[in-house]
């Protein structure tokens, strides 16, 4: 163990930990302001906001000798007996100087800046800046220019931390952004004709500590202090990035990546970031409907539930298609329902959408070709109940639906997910129950239509492609008329009270060995389900 002293407080760090001054101060509960340093990017130590005093303690005598000058915390490694002082007058003066310098040419247009409220320049100025402005200069020119289809640059707001430049060089490797000019005329720019158009471009907006890089999608749509942030998991592909869903009054305004070293580091792809729009699509289905010989009847949910209850009771032969968009808990309850109604019921995995190839970036961030969040989880649940997993295609091809009393199909796909032929085959069953968010060929021929919910409206757990289970709560309420699948199954199972995904997850963890590590509290970065899998399915783990 190495001991580091931060502001007189001793901090123990592991021998193999390589921390810098900022990180070690954070452990001591001290926030060192910084702009250019980012844990996912190289260190340039150019903003000079993280200036601290440092020194060494003599391990024998305990005597501390300090360096005469300030040093950047981001560049100073914390080793045994390193001393950091972050609250001396010298440090305060240095921070005030940097903050004052950065504001000399800054337009201070916070009232019309999207970043206001979550801006490092603003926050640090309130905390570390000077009260009065001594530079009575005409500061700015208010120029704005596009960097690409997703990002726009407000030139004068930039503090030249170069995080965005380093991101495009080190993470995506596309290097679209660069610094032009010199000295106080420096600007971020692109090479003419080569816009910022990589698949991760939106991240530069998150990286920007000030309001210089604006997200064209989010620009001027909402003040950040009006939005509430909810931890969620992206449903765009089977990477399952940890995200923050930011909404106001049940409308999502933007998604942001949430740090998770095991899944997405600090990033997310543009596809996921801007892919939430379907949640607010006006085409969303919101009317539960029951079709009988007399025709269509629009029903309320209690009626729909009793109808389903009777229907399941009177369906000795049943098949269920479990969508990979359902959570583990929902899949578990649906399979349980099916097995209660018909112990020999057929359980099939819903279609798994594929698009292109897996694409990996530096640090191991991957955009997967599998465009659904929970294939692994649903597969394991079905495997538990049915012994083996049947794919949707096999199910449709090999099953004579006319021999079945009922088929229950779950959807939730943002894109088209089945063909008219498949729907026709399914409709041969006595009853076709379809739970989906948009119309589909199956929805058209269904005898019971149940509007479901989209990803931000769900609650439960997803298992990503590398068997990491992440739990999340709903961020927004579904449109009136749609009901979370989990709530419906909960009610049909006769459970009392409000739908409690956590209770179901604990039940799943008890019943299915694969999910055993998920029995306790799920931390923000999720749980690796492979932890105790080696004894059972070694071959699967290595594959």
């Amino acid at each position, binding site marked *: 163990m190495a001991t580091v002293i931060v502001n007189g407080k001793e901090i123990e760090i592991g021998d193999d930990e390589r921390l810098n001054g900022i990180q070690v101060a954070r452990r001591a509960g001290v926030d060192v302001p910084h702009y250019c340093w980012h844990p996912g990017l190289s260190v340039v130590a150019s903003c000079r*906001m993280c200036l601290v005093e440092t020194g060494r303690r003599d391990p024998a005598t305990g005597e501390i000798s300090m360096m005469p000058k300030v040093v950047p915390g981001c560049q100073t490694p914390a080793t045994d007996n390193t001393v950091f002082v972050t609250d001396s007058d010298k440090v305060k003066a240095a921070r005030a100087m940097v903050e004052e310098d950065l504001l000399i040419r800054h337009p201070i247009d916070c009232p019309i800046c999207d970043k206001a409220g979550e801006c490092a320049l603003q926050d640090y100025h309130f905390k570390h800046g000077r009260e009065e402005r001594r530079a009575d200069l005409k500061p700015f020119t208010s120029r704005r220019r596009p960097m690409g289809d997703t990002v726009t640059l407000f030139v004068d707001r930039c503090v*030249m931390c170069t995080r965005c430049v380093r991101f495009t060089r080190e993470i995506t490797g596309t290097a679209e952004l660069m610094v032009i000019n*010199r000295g*106080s005329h*420096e600007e971020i720019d692109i090479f003419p004709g080569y816009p910022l158009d990589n698949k991760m471009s939106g991240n530069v907006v998150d990286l920007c500590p000030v309001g210089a890089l604006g997200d064209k999608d989010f620009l001027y749509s909402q003040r950040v202090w009006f939005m509430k942030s909810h931890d969620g998991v992206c449903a765009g592909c089977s990477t399952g990035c940890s995200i923050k869903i930011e909404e106001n009054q049940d409308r999502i305004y933007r998604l942001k990546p949430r740090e998770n070293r095991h899944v997405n580091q600090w990033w997310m792809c543009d596809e996921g970031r801007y892919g939430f729009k379907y949640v607010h699509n006006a085409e969303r289905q919101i009317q539960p409907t029951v079709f009988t010989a007399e025709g269509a009847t629009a029903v309320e949910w209690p009626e729909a539930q009793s109808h389903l209850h009777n229907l399941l009771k009177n369906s000795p032969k049943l098949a269920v298609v479990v969508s990979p968009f359902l959570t583990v808990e929902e899949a578990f309850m649906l399979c349980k329902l099916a097995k209660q109604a018909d112990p020999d019921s057929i359980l099939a995995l819903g279609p798994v959408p594929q698009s292109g190839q897996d694409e990996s970036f530096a640090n191991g961030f991957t955009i997967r070709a599998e465009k659904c969040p929970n294939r692994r989880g649903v597969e394991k649940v079905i495997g538990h109940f049915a012994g083996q997993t049947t794919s949707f295609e096999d199910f449709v091809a090999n099953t004579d639906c006319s021999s079945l009393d009922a088929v229950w199909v779950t959807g939730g796909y943002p894109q088209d997910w089945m063909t008219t032929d498949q729907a026709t085959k399914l409709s041969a069953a006595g009853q076709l129950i379809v739970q989906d968010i948009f119309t589909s060929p199956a929805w058209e021929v269904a005898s019971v239509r149940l509007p479901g919910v989209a990803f931000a409206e769900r609650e439960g757990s997803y298992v990503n492609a590398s068997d990491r289970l992440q739990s999340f709560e709903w961020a927004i309420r579904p449109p009136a008329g749609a009901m979370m699948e989990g709530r419906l199954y909960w009610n049909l199972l006769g459970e009392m009270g409000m739908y409690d995904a956590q209770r179901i997850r604990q039940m799943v963890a008890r019943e299915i060995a694969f999910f055993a590590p998920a029995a306790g509290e799920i931390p923000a970065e999720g749980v690796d389900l492979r932890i105790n899998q080696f004894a059972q399915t070694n071959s699967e783990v290595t594959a």
Partner: protein
Amino acid sequence: MAEFEPVLLANINRPNSFTRKEYEATGGYQSWKKVLSMDRNDVIDIVKSSNLRGRGGAGFPTGLKWTFLPKDHPGPIYFCLNADESEPGTFNNRILMEQDPHQVLEGLMISSYATRTSTAYIYLRYEYPGCNKRLQDAIDECYAAGYLGDNIQGSGYSLNIYIHQGAAAYICGEETGLIESIEGKRAWPRIKPPFPAIEGVFRKPTVVNNVETVACVKHILDRGADWFKSMGVPADPNNPRDAGSYGPKLYCLSGHVEKPGCYEAPLGLTARQLIEDFGGGCWKGRSVKAVIPGGISMGLLGPDELDCPLDFAGPGKYGCLGLGTAAAVVIDDQTSIVDFLHNSARFFAHESCGQCTPCREGTSWALKMLNRIKAGRGRLKDLDLLAEIGDTIGIIPGTTICGLSDGAAWPIKNAIKKFRGEFEHYIKRTNPDGYMVTDPVPVFETTAH
């Protein structure tokens, strides 16, 4: 003084001094041939015992720098010759490269041999096309004569020298900025450590030395370390960090003197001696108001500080940054120090690379304030702000990555400190109504109700 024989400038006035033939006629390349059979460590030991300190500005002991290279490094080691001579007032490298390029090349070859380098880059500033031609011709002659290339003179040692022209940026004179520039990147100085001796050009160990430094190496090998140590100022025994100032130095004298030029003299000459003995005194019978001791970034010596010895330790004792490039610029008593500082601030605001916030913003802020003072809208409080900028930027307070921002700070600091009265007088004279205004933001009067 009388017994001193110039060595670095000995041949520059000979006709065709830049050709190999003429150079060899004066004993050139003898050391190179001799060195090729010597042990590398012996060469380094000779340079070390001569106490040669870098001539580029910082005065770091050259032999010591060479020993920082990793021992038994398997891959390539690079040598960068810093010929990006862009400090205002400095032109000694230019004279060496234009008039006696073989002297520089021989020094470079010996230094490369000593540091086990087989590739050397000459980082030449863009503004020296004459040097470029002379150096390239000299290199071609050396290849033709077998002094460069593979297996030189059958010694088994190979050396290639390339000229890399910069694109005219002051920052490329900073050694890690130079390295980035050679790599084809924006010349933003790197954070240290690692120092170039461990990780430099293309992430390989690298030595960066000044043109005049390697020229001195040649003469040390010619004449021995004792000859070199017979000149200059010995180390101050009371200061363990003082390495002494030995050897000849090229002083560039410019500004308001009768005979400006590049003069060679042993280190330790005082500013007065340089101006009086070499420069023929201040021009037009005027008196000296200020002297820049070694390039504009070193600050200013006042009229009562002319006895400052121009060695590595001297200017520091008079509040200047150091000896720098020993380029003395003389300012006469009819020149406004406000104009001087404005010109200096304009240079540094233009040349700040813009990487570190304090230098990028501080230099341009200082320029804007000086613009305003010159325009007759200065206020006395601006002087305090200027002094504060001068005190807070640079690696000495620790607020920037490279030392060039100290160079930007020192003229401001010295000028305000040593000539404050003149600034105050100027501001009061040009802004008689507003010089005492203290409120930074103009106050708009509202109608009383």
